[in-house]
């Protein structure tokens, strides 16, 4: 009874602390410079101050923080957040004569993918083929040196190669008739010389979707009257093309520069549909006619190339959006001269609710409503998905890990079931696929646990035997060395140690990959995924375990030293038990009791250390998510992650006490 009462008191305290903590955090975070709307706005210079005020009002950011806190926790009647129509963002174009390539990597990059110049070595080889590039690929340092300093061309090649590798994760779907080859290079073919706008859709493995448009400059054909000297070398041509490109993709003065480069008619042709239209009733309405009539000839019709909704003859595109995320709409407008004008825009929308819908707050997440955790502004994903793992991507035509087939067909019954598994394959295959997929697309929580648990086990494996042996042979050479190393372990700066380990074991010896959590674009089953992950886990887990082991070694040794002179040990020896039995069965068992508590109580420090380690090794775990969320003003993510880690810590403490009582019969009798 007393135990139950104390348990209830503890749980009540935990709840109170969590509530207080979330309130304080909410206040603090809202006092931080830069709110989500302002961060959105900086991306778009065309947004007016009244738009900012309107967006803030829609998101409830004009309220004082305590009202926002109550809304965040309990929920509120959704004031019908309308979708926002975004202007299209240019994606950088690499121009040349012939094929036009688009650097889509920078636009929709999976944030978890580490852009690592070092990895470029193998990629350069793959991309260029042996003998094509004058590079000694077996000398990574030489490659780096060359890439960084000596030859800008190699540097660019390396960069492009890295990006090309990232393209393996991206799926690019050409719009309006452009063609892409395998390496996602737009093929201009017999396109006349000049500047062309090419549209395409990019989707990464996380399901993040973006619309890209590129200005493709196609150089005029080679003119025979030029002498080779006048034409210049290939490199010079490249550079001159590059300068045009630089002028065209200037971030701010984009339209003006296009106007400089083309005549007035061409300007109309290239004008993107970039008005921000936010309809107030949950539907988005874009007046296509008004867009085109201002600039070009009169329009006769519209055709929707891609996207939901309808286009009316009146020149209005209209749709109500449901379901969270981003939708890209692309269409073709035809004028009376038969010319076709492509237009496209991206609509950023949350779930569009019923007029009376009650948007549930964080409290409902405790009841199992994962949507109540909210939506991450930074990652454009639901927080629950971010933490718990992304679902399979079925029907995108790419056989990802965890899918035994994917033929770009979302319908069942033609080989693939709804869960992306070939029904003719056996059950084990299905299980293997599901496990591999779950692990490969693991969320932040699982990632952190997959780092912390091995580190914990590894450090206990070091610390406990060493502590026992050090205590039994007190003042021996082993004891001195182990104690000294334990002190060093306590005093280690985890980030520095991680960096040094990375420099030695992955840069120097190439034993382990330098950061990251798994090889992007991996193919294979569960065993392959586990093996791949293991090779990435060794370094960070080792570093963390060395840092933890120091403290625990000292605790273990201290506990043993306390237990060893006890009467019952003397009794056990007097009974004639072998020394081994005395130490292991009588001493260690009793000494372990306080150590278990200490291990459970140091979980907060463990989390702190994990943050730095995750940062150093680019490990997409909770700690790094928290850091990025705080820095990126992604408040809901920051608070949720904070509450999760705080709750884990406090429940850990509770469990530690429970284990303590269970292990120690003396406590049970007295209570």
């Amino acid at each position, binding site marked *: 009874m007393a135990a139950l009462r104390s348990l209830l008191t503890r749980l009540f*305290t935990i709840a109170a*602390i969590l509530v*207080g*903590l979330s309130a304080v*955090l909410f206040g*603090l*975070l809202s*006092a*931080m*410079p830069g709110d989500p709307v302002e961060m959105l706005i900086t991306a778009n210079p065309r947004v007016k101050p009244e738009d900012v005020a309107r967006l803030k009002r829609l998101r409830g950011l004009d309220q004082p923080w305590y009202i926002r806190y109550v809304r965040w926790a309990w929920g509120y009647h959704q004031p019908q957040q309308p979708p926002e129509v975004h202007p299209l963002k240019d994606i950088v174009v690499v121009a040349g004569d012939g094929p036009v390539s688009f650097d889509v990597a920078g636009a929709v990059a999976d944030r978890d993918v580490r852009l690592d*110049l*070092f990895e470029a070595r193998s990629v350069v080889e793959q991309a260029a083929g042996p003998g094509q590039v004058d590079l000694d690929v077996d000398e990574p*340092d030489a490659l*780096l*040196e060359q890439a*960084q300093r000596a030859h800008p061309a190699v540097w660019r090649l390396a960069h492009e190669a890295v990006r090309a590798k990232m393209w393996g994760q991206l799926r690019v779907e050409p719009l309006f008739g452009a063609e892409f080859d395998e390496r996602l290079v737009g093929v201009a073919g017999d396109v006349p010389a000049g500047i062309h706008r090419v549209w395409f859709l990019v989707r990464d493995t996380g399901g993040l979707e973006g619309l890209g448009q590129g200005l493709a400059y196609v150089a005029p054909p080679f003119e025979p009257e030029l002498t080779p000297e006048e034409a210049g070398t290939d490199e010079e041509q490249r550079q001159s093309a590059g300068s045009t490109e630089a002028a065209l993709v200037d971030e701010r003065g984009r339209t003006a520069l296009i106007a400089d480069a083309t005549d007035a008619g061409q300007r109309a042709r290239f004008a993107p549909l970039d008005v921000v239209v936010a309809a107030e009733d949950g539907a988005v309405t874009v007046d296509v006619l008004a867009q085109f009539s201002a600039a070009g000839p009169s329009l006769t019709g519209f055709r929707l190339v891609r996207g939901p909704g309808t286009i009316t003859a009146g020149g209005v595109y209209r749709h109500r959006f449901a379901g969270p995320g981003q939708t890209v709409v692309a269409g073709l407008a035809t004028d009376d001269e038969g010319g076709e004008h492509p237009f496209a825009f991206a609509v950023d929308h949350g779930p569009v609710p019923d007029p009376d819908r009650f948007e549930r707050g964080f409290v409902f997440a405790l009841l199992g409503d994962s949507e109540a955790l909210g939506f991450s502004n930074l990652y454009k994903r639901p927080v629950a998905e971010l933490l718990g793992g992304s679902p399979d991507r079925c029907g995108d035509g790419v056989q990802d890990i965890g899918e035994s087939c994917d033929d770009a067909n979302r319908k069942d019954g033609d080989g693939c079931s709804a869960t992306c598994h070939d029904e003719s394959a056996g059950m084990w295959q299905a299980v293997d696929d599901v496990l591999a997929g779950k692990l490969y697309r693991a969320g932040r929580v699982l990632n952190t646990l997959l780092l912390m648990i091995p580190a914990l086990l590894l450090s206990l494996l070091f610390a406990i035997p060493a502590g026992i042996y050090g205590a039994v042979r007190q003042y021996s050479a082993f004891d001195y060395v182990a104690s*000294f190393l334990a*002190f*060093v372990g*306590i*005093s*280690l*700066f985890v*980030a*520095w*140690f991680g*960096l*040094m380990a*990375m*420099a030695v074991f992955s*840069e120097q010896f190439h034993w382990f990959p*330098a950061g990251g959590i798994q090889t992007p674009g991996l193919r294979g089953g569960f065993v392959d995924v586990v093996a791949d992950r293991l090779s990435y886990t060794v370094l960070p887990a080792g570093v963390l375990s060395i840092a933890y082991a120091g403290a625990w070694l000292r605790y273990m040794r*201290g506990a043993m*030293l*306390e237990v060893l*002179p006890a009467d019952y040990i003397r009794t056990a020896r007097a009974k004639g038990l072998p020394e081994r039995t005395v130490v292991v069965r009588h001493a260690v068992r009793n000494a372990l009791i306080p150590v278990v508590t200490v291990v459970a109580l140091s979980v*907060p420090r463990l*989390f*702190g250390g994990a*943050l*730095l380690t995750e*940062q150093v090794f680019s490990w997409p775990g909770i*700690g790094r998510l*928290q*850091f990025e969320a*705080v*820095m990126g003003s992604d408040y809901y993510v*920051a608070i949720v992650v*904070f509450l999760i*880690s*705080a709750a884990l*810590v*406090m429940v850990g*403490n509770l469990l530690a006490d429970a284990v303590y009582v269970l292990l120690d019969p003396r406590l049970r009798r007295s209570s």
Partner: protein
Amino acid sequence: MIALWLLVKAQRRAHLVARDTPLGIGGARRLGWIGFSLVLFSMCTAGFVVDSPRATAVYLPGLGAALAFAAAVHLRLRGRAVVPRPESFVELVSMRFARHRLARGASLVLAAMIEVALWGGVIEWALGVSHRAPDVDRIYLGPTWPFLLGTDEVGHDVFTRLLFGGQISLAVGLVSALSAAAVGTVVGLTAGYFGGWWDTVAMRFVDAMLSIPVLPLMIVFSALSLDKLAPPPVVWWTVLLGAFGWGLFSLLWSSRRRRPGPRPPGGMAGFALLYASVVFGVVGYAVDWSAVVGGGLGSVVKIILIIVLFGWMTVARLARAAALTLRNMEFVTAARALGAGHGQILLQHILPGALAPVIVAATLEVGAYILYEAALSYLGLGVQPPVPSWGNMLNNGLEYIRTAHAHLAFWPGLLILVTVVCFNFFGDGLRDALDPHQVMKRTS
């Protein structure tokens, strides 16, 4: 130079203690005083990083006062040395400390590091290099004369930068440990001594703070900007003048009325208020805050504040435990019966008893705080360049870890490691010396 001399004397003393010769005076106490003066001196030197005449006008006398203080303490202790006091507590403690060989070595290393770091300016002048001025002609130099450890990516001399970074990092560690210990002692002692609702509130708060992960909270706080949180000067001055007036008033009031019955706010509290308001006023005026922020020291102040904010809880718990046991002792009851006020009892009877665990904890925390500073600076949130600290040097060197310039990240990390190890050894030795119970547990 004087500090070096004091250091040599102190080490000689420690050596004497090591050979267990009877001592007249406490070597440990002297070490403590010297350490204290070194801290002051270090802060004064750190103050010189700001090139402000107003700051110099206060720091120079401050430096002189610190040195004079150290010398006076030294002389006073030497004067006392004539009277032998065998088996005194201080002697016991110093002998016990000296027995811990690693701790003795660590104290020597620490003292040497502090000393060398303090000589950073002179060394820089002697070598003719600069740790702050970029020099595009001399980037990525290897170890050559006069660049003893080479130069970094903008041509700063790495060696002198390490020295100045050491000043900042050590100052952050020491000052935050001192301040956190002070805050924790005040909260813990009052909570343990008075009990009641204050004890409940304070200790629940401490429990809550101790059970949540600290580093993410620190990140949140360091992302806040100080100037947005700081109230306008009018508020500061009002608070200061109010505290001054109230302290003066209560001091005069309590000195006039010495009658039985309910007592007005005690003289101790009044004195503390008076003292604090004067000190804060002088410091607040002397330091040209815009220059501090402009010179980058604002981030140092901020990080100290943040560390203190999250660091005082352990000390508070220890102090409360000590106060709980001491407040029911006979000598406290006797003092109360003799008419001593709460302030006097707390200061004269309870604080000394609580001091040993507090000192040990504070020493051990120095290392942890240096690590916190390094962690925050590593994340780009701590001490901001151009002010160097080991943490932000590490953050800087990070980019070059894959290149031939990996040593840029190696040195600051190594120094952090050595310093923190030494502080931990030092604290361990202090614990052995000050806390006999612990010793028995450890060695029996």
